[in-house]
């Protein structure tokens, strides 16, 4: 089975992001970057599937050149091959452009199953998996809590507002996995060393036949950025053993008890 996992390098989610005041793009300079923690679940899900059933995991990423580190981390976890699409023209791409680029790279590579996280932790538009599926003309089974492949059928427990749906779809397909779907492995030292000799394709939008696709689809622009109003400062107390009483009093004051 050929599994392609989409991954993204993002600013460390434990730091507060900033927008460039003139370009309105995310400031990436001087910011620690990591493989999106959400994507580790996707890589792990792919590895578990091919370990059980044979096949290979390819990871694909679009982003700046240093995004190669995120691809390498996925290779160190056990993916067989990496693809990084990096191109200055793609800077500031919106969700649809990102999906077009990823779909083109996935189509070029060939796939039985594409795995993504439900959304990136930095941009969190949360529609790229569905867009990729539409562009590849395959089903998108999103928000998977579990992922199984039985022959050529994908079987998923899909998160819903009320609980979950059992969903089946014929491969090829796209599946997006929720956080907590598995326990992502740590790369072993052997994995990290081995990653250096694994095949790694570096592509541009031109290689994918998408010249001029870069940037945001010219259909939207950020017209205003302002600091959100802050909440008024509250009362902060050290727990002297009676903190619980303060909370009970507060609940009574708010008339919820």
């Amino acid at each position, binding site marked *: 089975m050929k599994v392609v996992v989409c991954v993204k390098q993002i600013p460390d989610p434990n730091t507060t992001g900033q927008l460039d005041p003139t370009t309105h793009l995310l400031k990436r300079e001087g910011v620690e970057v990591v493989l999106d923690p959400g994507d580790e679940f996707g890589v792990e899900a792919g590895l578990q599937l091919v370990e059980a059933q044979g096949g290979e995991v390819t990871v694909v990423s679009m982003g700046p050149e240093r995004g190669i580190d995120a691809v390498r981390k996925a290779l160190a976890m056990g993916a067989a091959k990496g693809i990084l699409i990096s191109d200055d023209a793609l800077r500031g791409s919106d969700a649809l452009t990102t999906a077009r680029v990823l779909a083109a790279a996935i189509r070029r590579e060939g796939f039985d199953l594409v795995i993504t996280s439900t959304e990136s932790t930095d941009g969190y538009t949360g529609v790229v998996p569905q867009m990729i599926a539409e562009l590849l003309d395959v089903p998108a089974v*999103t928000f998977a*809590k579990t992922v199984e492949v039985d022959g050529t059928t994908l079987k998923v427990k899909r998160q819903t507002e009320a609980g979950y749906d059992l969903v089946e779809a014929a491969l090829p397909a796209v599946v997006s996995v929720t956080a907590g779907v598995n326990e992502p492995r740590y790369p072993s030292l052997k994995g990290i060393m081995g990653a250096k000799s694994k095949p790694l394709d570096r592509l541009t939008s031109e290689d994918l036949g998408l010249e001029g696709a870069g940037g945001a689809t010219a*259909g*939207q*622009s950020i017209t205003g950025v302002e600091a*959100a109003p802050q909440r008024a400062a509250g009362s902060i107390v050290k727990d002297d053993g009676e903190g*619980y009483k*303060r909370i009970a009093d*507060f*609940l009574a004051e708010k008339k919820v008890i």
Partner: protein
Amino acid sequence: MSLGKIWVFAEIAGGKPAPIALELLTKARSLAGTVEAVAFAPDAADAAAELGAHGATTLYAGTDPLWGELLLGGPAADALAALMHEHRPDLVLFGMTYTSRDVAGRLAAKLGVPVIANGLDVSDGDGVSVHSSVFGASLNVATRFEAAGPALAIIRPKSFVAEPSGGGPAAVTQVTSTIDDKHKSARVTDRVADVAAGPKLEEAPIVISGGRGLGDPKNFELLDQLAAVLGNAAVGASRAVVDAGWVPYAMQVGQTGKTVKPAVYLAFGISGAMQHTVGMKGAKAIVAVNRDENAPIFKLADLGVVGDALKVLPALVEELQRRRS
């Protein structure tokens, strides 16, 4: 671009529209002269009265029994694209829910137009803009549609309060387009409700959330006990503990989880990473308990207790029981 006609994509369960559809209709009424709804479910027509009462004059309803069995994303995007071609809405509003995101994403790719997600408001002044908040709600951003053609926006639940318009039932127009065979392989074979006792997270007047500071998954029982004694409370969680597999994704409050706006939000052992705060900062009152006095959650808290949540929780449960009796 100005707004003459707005459509609201409505999810239907048991013949009733999802609450977000009514919220979106209420907002749409303030922006456009014509407001209509679109729904795909075998019993979609049953929702015409409620959708109409919130401002939809027409309901385009796909009522083929297959709509109840298939994953909605692919076929609903096809059907919507065809309907939009015929009826030309200026803006289509979707709720930020699992299924509506599927439909909106596929539709945007099909039409080749942008979709702006995570909206908290929509305005029509100098162009149509979607307002959202980024970086843990520290910045408010306005994004304007520049393209000709329909605008697609995905709005977070609870962004607007649903209010009846006093209108009569929406006129039902049957959607007659057929579902392409290629969509028929992606089917829902069973629907499982794993209903927690008590109110839903998004609707509960009190939300009690736990994070890493609880130390161990079993300590979520303390939150359940507190919820039980309060009676009208639901239990949520930070992303860190969902990622760690302590509790299911459905309990996650935050940017990638649910948005809650309870009367009181209680955060136990949650540091207040921006990922989390975007989902709860709309609470009317916030109580935080955390060992780290520098935890960012205290910047939002109306009452902050610097201390061990595992000590405070059992004492609080006992205190509330005592006050009740």
